[in-house]
């Protein structure tokens, strides 16, 4: 299974993504430079965290126009699994591959911590292997991660089960306190309508070893590998 890690000049989570993918059985990671227009036959794509083009103006705004993004759009439209992590999520919303926008955190400040999220929909191949309702402990680190969409969109997202992860406490309760960045309805991750594109603020690729605080993030990567194997893409 070939998984492409789409790298912009200011990406900084690419190395961590490559690392966890290398350690995921059945997975062959490949770095895809933002100027490239060839996805090198990747079966799935990860847009890692970082500050794609310095994130001046708005996070992800300029990255959206990188040459590789046209291919990413095509790949997503054909149903290929795409995961945007943190800045990758911001790029995907700017590119209109995912609904909504990510605003500055409620407390304005950059916030680095460990957060719990509840898996509220497993429609995405990245989450298909994780039991619904599971609580994951994942690293978060962002300044613009407050998920925003208008009321109707939020309604639709929930009806269509596009809300994938929600900030919660250690026991899985959606409390105001656990919603550390002030996201609408505690939303930490959403998918597109067909479920193949997932954007999330937390960092599964940093949550890969108990020594570092949690290994819960590994499940997303093994999940997509099994999902793809099942489909036989």
């Amino acid at each position, binding site marked *: 299974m070939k998984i492409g890690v789409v790298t912009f000049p*200011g990406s900084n989570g690419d190395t961590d993504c490559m690392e966890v993918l290398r350690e995921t059985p059945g997975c062959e990671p490949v770095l895809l430079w933002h100027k490239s227009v060839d996805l090198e036959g990747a079966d799935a794509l990860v847009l890692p965290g970082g*500050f794609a083009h310095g994130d001046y103006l708005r996070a992800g705004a300029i990255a959206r126009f990188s040459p590789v993004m046209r291919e990413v759009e095509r790949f997503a439209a054909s149903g290929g699994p795409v995961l945007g992590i943190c800045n990758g999520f911001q790029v995907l919303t700017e590119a209109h591959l995912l609904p909504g926008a990510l605003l500055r955190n409620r407390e304005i*400040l950059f*916030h*680095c911590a460990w957060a719990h999220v509840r898996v509220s929909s497993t429609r995405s191949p990245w989450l298909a292997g994780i039991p619904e309702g599971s609580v994951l402990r994942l690293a978060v*680190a962002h300044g613009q991660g407050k998920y925003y969409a208008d009321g109707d969109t939020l309604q639709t997202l929930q009806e269509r089960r596009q809300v994938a992860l929600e900030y919660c406490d250690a026991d899985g309760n959606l409390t105001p306190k656990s919603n550390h960045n002030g996201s609408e309805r505690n939303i930490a991750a959403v998918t597109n309508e067909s479920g193949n594109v997932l954007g999330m603020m937390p960092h599964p690729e940093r949550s890969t070893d108990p020594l570092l*605080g949690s290994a819960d993030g590994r499940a997303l990567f093994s999940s997509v590998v099994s999902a793809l194997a099942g489909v036989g893409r």
Partner: protein
Amino acid sequence: MTVYSVSGEALREVALSEEEYRLAVGLLGREPNRLELGILGAMWSEHCGYKNSRPLLGLFPTEGPGVVQGPGENAGAVRLGGVLAAVFKVESHNHPSAIEPYQGAATGVGGIVRDIFTMGARPIALLNSLRFGPLEERENRRLLGGVVRGIGDYGNSLGIPTVGGEIGFSPSYNGNPLVNAMCVGIAPADGLVRGLAGQPGNVLLLVGADTGRDGIHGATFASVDDPQESHKGVIQVGNPFMEKLLMEACLELVGSPHVVGMQDLGAAGLTSSSVECAGRTGSGVEIDVSRVSRRERGMTPYDVMLSESQERMLLVVEPDGVESVRSIFEKWDLHSDVIGQVTGDGTLRVKDGDDVVCDLPIGLLTEDVPRYTRAGSPSVELKERRDADVSAVVAGVDHDPTGALLTLLSSPNIGSKRWVWSQYDHTIGTSTVLGPQHGDAAVMRVRQTGEGLAATMDCNSLHCYLDPYAGGVGAVVEAARNLACVGATPLGMTNCLNFGNPEKPEVYWHLSECVRGMADACRALDIPVVSGNVSLYNESGSEAVHPTPVVGMVGSLPQVETAVGIDWPEGAAVYLLTTGQEPVLGASEWLRVVAGQECGRPLSADPVAESSVHNLLGKCIGDGTILSAHDLSEGGLAVALAECCIRGGIGLDAPDWGGSDAPEQLFGEAHGRVVVSVSSEARTKLEAACESLGVLCESIGITRGESLRLGTVLQVPLADLQTAYDSALSTST
């Protein structure tokens, strides 16, 4: 007497004294032109030339079997395990941060990161040591907020985790905050890149950002004592995105046979970087400023040579390799200019097209920098404070152990710094095993070898103020102790000497005594100093900051999994390990916070006795006997125990604790004291180890329950401890 054509004002502008000017003219055999004068001023400034500090720096031990690169390069390096080297240095950006806290701190991080990747090392961790005036003042809150955001944004953008450091508050920093940043990188031990010029004919390549009029005379401004009044240049604005590209491109070039040397542009920009490269190889350089890409029209050679625009690098490349090296930069969308070449004549020749606008011997700018050894003496005020009758002050305090503990926990020097470090990305890179506030030092895993790399920054500036020799010893010993508490052994040290105007006898006395103490401690503990930085003239009004010789220390653990934090588990036995030194209240945090007095003398550490404690920790953490460790520093025993409770989320039950409620016992400060926890089965093992290594060990109690209970002296609910601790920086939010 000769009459010179230069005005007093022109000399003041470049911070040269008339005597220095006379000396320079004598050496040069003529008067310098305006550009040459600017270059001379920058290179002879304290910041670049170390006029006042170089003789003192000579006291530091800089050699040892593990040293791969000692002082003199962009950063120092020590051997880490077999084939790797840890490359590290600390850098100050105090004056720029006083003027524009966000940009000043951000560009400080940018500068230290460049020093590390210039050596061919990949930066893996950032730390910082900060000092501000009290947070009750709005201006200090503004400075703190700006500095923290600046450090965070820059490091976060680069993807280098900021994993540790320290912050302190005292009125002496009003108007002159200290911002010291430290970076640690990893490189192959035999593959370090140096800032060398090499053979005549080698090409000088200037890479990165265009040159603007930023920070002209930054180096000289850092060498006069009123940042607010003296700063006239354009403030530097950092671009971490550009730095990220530079870093990746430069690291890609490590090992290229064409690259002879790399040198970042820091203080005094192109001037100091080219002079340093040439100076290290005894060659000369010729630069044509008309080839330098500029951000603005109308810049003079003076502007170009002295600009401190950020995110620029100078590469020395063999003539055949220029095209291949430039192609790597192009790949990263970076612009590069061929601006000159290395010559064999030992001069710095600057041309503007065909005109020679500067022709100075390199030696005049490096070896000939005047060196001053001054006479120092303590001020009368200091002597009074130091010799004050501490017991009389103590007797005047209505002692309430619980109240004092909560007050100390909620004071900004001791309380939680979460508001600060949660703004720093400390998990990027998936190597942070012990991040901010998790252990006494930060611990990173070294993927290549499975080792742990530990780093810490320390300095008790109150101790340094009241007894600079003891404070200097203490800073080194405390840093080593912090490394020991996570299970690491020190490999090497860097430092940043933050002091006031050295021309004042009391400041020079503080500076020289601190350095003497640090150097003696380094020798006693066998820790080489491999890099550092000096920041003098930190004054506002006419008051010097408290002497703040910040120690940055790096150590290693054979296996990173064995590292322990402060947090103790439930059901563990808690011991206090000591060298037998009895704690005192002189120069203590209790005296400052509870009694409102900065007076008395701190104890001086005994490095030899201290070593046995460190050895014990190394052994018993390495073999898994010790489950958590925390050293006793500001606030003494009670504060250390409270911190362990808070971090572990578990109380301490010590019904049989035999100590008294005297403030010395609870809050007094001494060296060589560490609280550890072990499983109940491991008690005899720990006791035996202490016995054999000559460490005193006192059983304190068991970790359990919801409160900190110390005999009949103290019983405080965990929730109260937590609330007090978390409130410390609440005024800043």
